[in-house]
């Protein structure tokens, strides 16, 4: 570079060949090998990867939080021109907070539950030399106002559990930027948040960036990263596979892994296509049978619960829909929109206060459990966290076999054989049969959950946030599996998700919910390309999107 001298001066962070390893029982295990980057004031570098890629370890080791047994080596780590290799924990404490702000994913865990958030932020100020209590209180209010917390004076006195997820995350950001650090490291700052809140948090980070703060963003989500990053580092298995300007990585990735990550993002352009088979591979699809009688008919469902404050609230308020054979009906909404309660009503795990569910032409809600029991096999469910829905004592084989019909599969041998068939259908081989699901990966567990849901040979499967906890490439595999199963078995899905991209990719028709009410209901094309309601438009506008490269 020709303008070396003037540019060099605003390099905030300079890392050369960072290596992180952990001492384990037998020797040493390398977790991160060879991360290098140079970060300037007012710019953002994003480290992207899936779980186990080493991205979080990288971030933590940059601020001296590697953890026990961790060893950090690098040819150079310079922060504002100062070598920060080998700082003691005491020295680190003066750097963290004042010069480097650190934002973690889960604000509820990172904030002290017993302390008002204002006190938490004031603590950071006090530790770094703000002495007057009144001056601190005033600064706290300013900071909270800065990050867009309404009524900051009131909020400062509240504890984390009294704040919503979005406000909590903002309070955490306020404490991270309290001392106006030159560098902010954000590890999955929006992962647990609803899209509209996510958009606000990203906006907030963007403002800091424009004000000159350097930003390191850690995320599994390329679309989130695309909003902020100037440069992107793609990691997998502790190695950097690709690094370069954001536009280049997102627009013309050269490494197949980056390509696979991008292809795995579901959305409008992936409808009817495979997410894992490479670009342009279409999936066989059966047209849903809309003319005949619906399999599930939900009419004017209402369900209310009494909250901890003893106020009765309608969680589901006048929801109606029909689900036809072979159809995927997406229910999308933010947390608290009542979509999971709707699922429970459809599964008859709860009865509605009013309204009715009709399953296969016969009344399903409001009938006695003994009359329902035999028909329960026609509708099954896959949850977000499969592990909590498995008996912890049981092997994969027993977990699946337990859902097989006692009438159809009388002998032990026939049950075993059919469990194998089901495993094969979901793409698992029989080596997992005797394992405890606890020892399987997230994707494998979800496949076991799907195999179990298929075991009763249902006509409807309720998928309640079934792919929400999975890494994007694993999510892509599971979504492909679900599409494939639907094409082969003709099963209907009630697909519940907060993720608009997933809903758009999977659904024939979409129901948008907010505060228990129906906002909009229509075909996926109508909802996503021609939304009628302001809330739907707001949701769609909040959705971060990777600029879609032209598909060949």
């Amino acid at each position: 570079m020709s303008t070396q001298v003037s540019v060099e001066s605003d390099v905030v962070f300079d890392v050369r060949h960072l290596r992180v390893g952990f001492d384990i029982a037998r020797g040493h295990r390398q977790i991160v090998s060879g991360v290098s980057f140079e970060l300037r004031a007012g710019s953002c570098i994003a480290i992207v990867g899936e779980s186990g890629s080493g991205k979080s370890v990288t971030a933590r080791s940059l601020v001296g939080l590697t953890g026990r047994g961790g060893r950090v080596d690098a040819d150079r780590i310079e922060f504002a021109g100062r070598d920060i290799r080998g700082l003691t924990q005491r020295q680190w404490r003066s750097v963290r907070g004042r010069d480097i702000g650190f934002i973690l994913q889960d604000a509820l865990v990172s904030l002290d539950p017993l302390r008002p958030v204002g006190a938490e932020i004031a603590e950071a100020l006090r530790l770094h030399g703000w002495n007057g209590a009144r001056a601190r209180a005033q600064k706290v209010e300013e900071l909270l106002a800065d990050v867009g917390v309404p009524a900051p004076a009131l909020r400062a006195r509240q504890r984390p559990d009294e704040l919503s997820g979005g406000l909590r995350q903002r309070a955490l950001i306020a404490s991270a930027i309290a001392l106006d650090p030159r560098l902010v490291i954000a590890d999955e700052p929006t992962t647990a948040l609803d899209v509209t809140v996510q958009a606000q948090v990203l906006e907030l980070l963007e403002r800091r960036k424009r004000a000159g703060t350097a930003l390191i963003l850690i995320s599994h989500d390329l679309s989130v990263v695309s909003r902020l990053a100037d440069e992107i580092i793609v990691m997998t298995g502790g190695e950097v596979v690709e690094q370069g300007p954001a536009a280049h990585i997102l627009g013309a990735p050269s490494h197949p892994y980056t390509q696979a990550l991008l292809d795995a993002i579901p959305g409008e352009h992936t409808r009817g296509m495979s997410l894992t088979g490479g670009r342009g591979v279409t999936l066989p699809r059966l047209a849903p049978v809309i003319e005949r009688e619906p399999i599930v008919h939900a009419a004017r469902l209402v369900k209310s619960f009494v909250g901890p404050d003893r106020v009765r609230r309608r969680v589901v308020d006048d929801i109606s829909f029909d689900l036809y054979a072979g159809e995927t009906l997406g229910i999308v909404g933010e947390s608290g929109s009542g979509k999971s309660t709707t699922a429970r009503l459809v599964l008859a795990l709860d009865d509605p206060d009013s309204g009715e569910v009709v399953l296969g032409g016969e009344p399903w809600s409001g009938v006695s459990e003994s009359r329902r029991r035999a028909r329960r096999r026609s509708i099954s469910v896959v949850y977000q966290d499969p592990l909590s829905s498995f008996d912890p004592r049981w092997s994969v084989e027993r977990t699946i076999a337990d859902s097989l019909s006692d009438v159809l599969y009388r002998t032990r041998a026939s049950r075993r054989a059919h469990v194998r068939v089901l495993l094969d259908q979901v793409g698992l081989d029989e080596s997992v049969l005797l394992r405890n699901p606890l020892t399987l990966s997230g994707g494998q567990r979800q496949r076991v959950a799907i195999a179990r849901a298929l075991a009763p040979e249902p006509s409807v499967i309720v998928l309640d946030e079934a792919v929400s906890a999975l890494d994007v490439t694993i999510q892509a595999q599971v979504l492909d599996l679900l599409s494939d199963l639907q094409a082969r078995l003709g099963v209907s899905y009630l697909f519940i998700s907060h993720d608009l991209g997933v809903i758009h990719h999977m659904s024939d028709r979409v129901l948008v919910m907010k505060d228990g009410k129906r906002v909009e209901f229509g075909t996926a094309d109508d909802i996503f390309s021609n939304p009628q309601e302001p809330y739907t438009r707001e949701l769609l506008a909040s959705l971060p999107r990777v600029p879609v490269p032209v598909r060949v």
Partner: protein
Amino acid sequence: MTASTLVSAPRPTRPSAPIGSLRARLRNFPLAAAVAAVVLVFVIVAAVWPDLLAPGSPFAINLSAALQPPSPAHILGTDESGRDLYTRIIHGTGQSLLIGLGATAVAFVVALLLGVAAGLGGRVADAIISRALDVFFAFPVLLVALLVVAIYGPSVTTQILAIGIGTAPGYARMIRGQVLAVRNSGYVESGRAVGHRYGRILRQHIVPNALRPLVGVFTLGIGQSIVWAAGLAFLGLGVAPPSPEWGALLDAGRAFITTAWWLEVIPGIAIIVVALSVTTVGRYAQQLLEGATD
């Protein structure tokens, strides 16, 4: 907060190895558990077949050899009637162990019924049982046990009943808590969703998963019951005197504590060693069940 929130049931914190590798886990048997297991084998042999370890009669009186300290002839010494203490302890093992196991079994059955009824019986049943347990809790275990012995007179059976009933409320409370957690678990709901009958869900999910974390607690209870039995015997409410039951030995030895220490100390050590061994093995068994070996 809606009712759809699943309360996750207790679950081992670390991933267990595949179920097939139980043998591999046994290979990492720690020393303490190994020693405890050897002691327990010895204790069980003594309980089942005492003559194998101590061929003499525990009641054989030899007044010329009364109150002798431990020596090669009588390795643990003799009592005031010249009976060999080693022989008496070995022959008393069966009764002491029977009381420990029996009392825990009684406590287990009573606690299981109360705990499951409170956990699953709905709000009213839960309130009644829980308050009743609270009242029970206000009385010391010993007082409750004393009451039972006072009514039925001292014998092995009443000891078992007395200690079993006395310790049951604590277990009942733990079982109730576990049942409540498991009842709201995802796998119970999955069982419902697939149309299993309530009895099947209770049998295959709720009871085993509620009890699993308590296996260790119950093995600890065996040792504890032996100690309670010794306490009752010490108060003269245990098994009648000529019996070599360990608590009875303690009670008899009390009179000689200043002149013949071994009559008091050695049965005490026997109780401690057995209680510790059962506890150690129990704790290890619990870890094994939960898949954590260290």
